[in-house]
């Protein structure tokens, strides 16, 4: 059983996944942010690998990516920063997922990337622009060879047949995008509820995590009502951008969301 699968085995509800962009706000904030997230209730940490042309992202994550690249972030450095993260007791059982785009991964060397990710203790990958055809014919086998879980996205526009197929290919969890939108948009949770109920009725093999537009307690609770948990991205990046103390910022941001 993978670490991600264990997380959902132990906690079936209100699983919290928080995204941040590596190299933002400052180049070497990576571990501080991860420790703060883990000690304030994040079950899974999604680390964004910054890219010059992040198609699926709205302005907040775009800007954090540009800033991170200006700060000098790259994949080699990120793996160096993550090298000892699993020795940190706070992070020993936290899910760690890398999110990014195909081009930088290809330049790094896809197999080398998977090998290095696995060796620093990464659990899963989200590469939104890796299509399922290429996954099935070329990349999926490499990802599995290194024991990584690959997570596909589904949207309210995705057909039931396709959702079932993407669920079969995914491991760890299935990423339910709340609306057809780029990250950080507003979300209508009445519409999301219908979509999540539809997903639930499909008896999928993976737990469901809802992302896009989750920004506070209200949206987190609404999403968790019909899923195993939710993913927060842009809203947290906005808070980090205020450049206050990271531990304090994270605590103040997450406290009302997890509600204790």
């Amino acid at each position, binding site marked *: 059983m993978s670490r991600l699968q264990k997380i959902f085995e132990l906690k079936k509800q209100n699983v919290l996944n928080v995204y941040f962009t590596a190299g933002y706000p400052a180049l070497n904030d990576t571990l501080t942010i991860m420790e703060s997230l883990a000690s304030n209730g994040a079950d899974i940490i999604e680390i964004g690998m910054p*890219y010059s042309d992040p*198609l*699926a992202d709205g302005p907040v994550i*775009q800007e954090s990516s540009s800033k991170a690249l200006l700060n000098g972030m790259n994949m080699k450095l990120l793996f160096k920063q993550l090298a000892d993260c699993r020795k940190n007791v706070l992070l020993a059982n936290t899910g760690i997922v890398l999110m990014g785009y195909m081009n930088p991964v290809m330049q790094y060397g896809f197999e080398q990337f998977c090998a290095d990710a696995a060796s620093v203790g990464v659990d899963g990958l989200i590469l939104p622009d890796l299509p399922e*055809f290429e996954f099935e014919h070329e990349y999926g086998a490499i990802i599995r060879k290194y024991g990584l879980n690959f997570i596909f996205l589904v949207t309210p526009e*995705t057909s039931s047949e396709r959702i079932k197929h993407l669920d079969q290919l995914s491991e760890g969890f299935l990423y339910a995008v709340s609306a057809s939108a*780029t990250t950080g948009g507003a979300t209508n949770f009445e519409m999301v509820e219908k979509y999540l109920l539809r997903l639930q009725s499909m008896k999928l093999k993976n737990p469901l995590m809802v992302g896009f537009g989750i920004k506070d307690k209200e949206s987190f609770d609404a999403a968790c009502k019909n899923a195993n948990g939710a993913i927060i991205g842009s809203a947290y990046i906005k808070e980090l951008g205020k450049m206050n103390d990271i531990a304090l910022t994270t605590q103040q941001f997450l406290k009302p969301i997890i509600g204790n």
Partner: protein
Amino acid sequence: MNYQNPTEQGYYGQFGGAYIPEMLHGNVAELHQQYLSIMKEPTFIKEFKLLLKDYVGRPTPLFYAERLSAEFNTNIYLKREDLCHTGAHKINNTIGQILLARRLGKTRIIAETGAGQHGVATATVCALKGMECIVYMGEKDIERQAPNVARMKMLGAKVIPATSGSKTLKDATNEAIRDWINHPNDTHYIIGSVVGPHPYPDMVARFQSIISEEIRIQLNAKTGSELPTHVIACVGGGSNAAGAFYHYLNEPTVQLVAVEAAGHGVNSGMSAATTQLGKPGILHGSKSLVMQTEDGQVVEPHSISAGLDYPGVGPLHANLFQSGRGVFLSATDDEAMEAAFHVSKTEGIIPALETAHAFAVLGKMNLKPSDVVVICLSGRGDKDLSTYMMAMNEGLY
């Protein structure tokens, strides 16, 4: 190898595909399932051909350039795409896509533009068909290309500045794709070149293939053979080249010459010669050659011509380059400027700066008196007049 048709998954050799986030899957899959059958409908073909004839002004002439031929001691024919309505070949594609969008039931059109030629061509067909039109254009390009911005507005389009990244064509394309993600049902994205996720490269190439379809007939009437020895076209994303090459791709005796923008020089750090400087990568939804850093971050290219100022190239062309089927040359900013003035004075045709690159390689090609060379004169130079005036004011030409 068949150079013309990609595989079912959209691959030309190792290049192509549809590397898109799930949020775009519905729109792209719908297009993929329907574009070929719609393009084969007799009513579609009839409407497309009629508009090309009566609205665009096709067929465009194939003109024997007597003085240029004498100068290079060969036979040079110019395919006059500059005479198309709106001044360039771009409208062949926008006419095709607007008719396709209507058959798909779309009501809202989005497009990206660099110099504004594709934006104007899109705004034009939207006006013609009464469709809402939104054009994304880099903030920097909006400043540089004021007359085309004014044209688009006069045609009823809304021009939205792309303020992300480097604020040029690449970023305008990103913004258009993000708009499409946010409008999954009512919107069709008219991409202006043979780039983007499958089926765009193939679809745009097919709409532009009217160029070589006409060349074959016209050349046969003039020379008794449909086959020239060379076809020369400039390449940014590569839509006019795709159109001019299309019906010659599987004719091995015809040398296909693609001319990229070298900017200040291929190795100057200020260039847009993608096949020389790029590595296999993924940009705007397809795998192709991409100018990028070692870390896989896409770099900002440079060319004096905004239409060639793109860090990628269509997968069809990447395959022509890699397989050796195409000959890839380049011309610098200065060489293109010189060629623009030379063609103007020699043939009485002021070409677009993009097109001028195609003329700039004539002297590098060792052409023989028996050769028959077709140059795709993709656009006219009106839009570049301020650049040409600056050069004249500096006393350069």
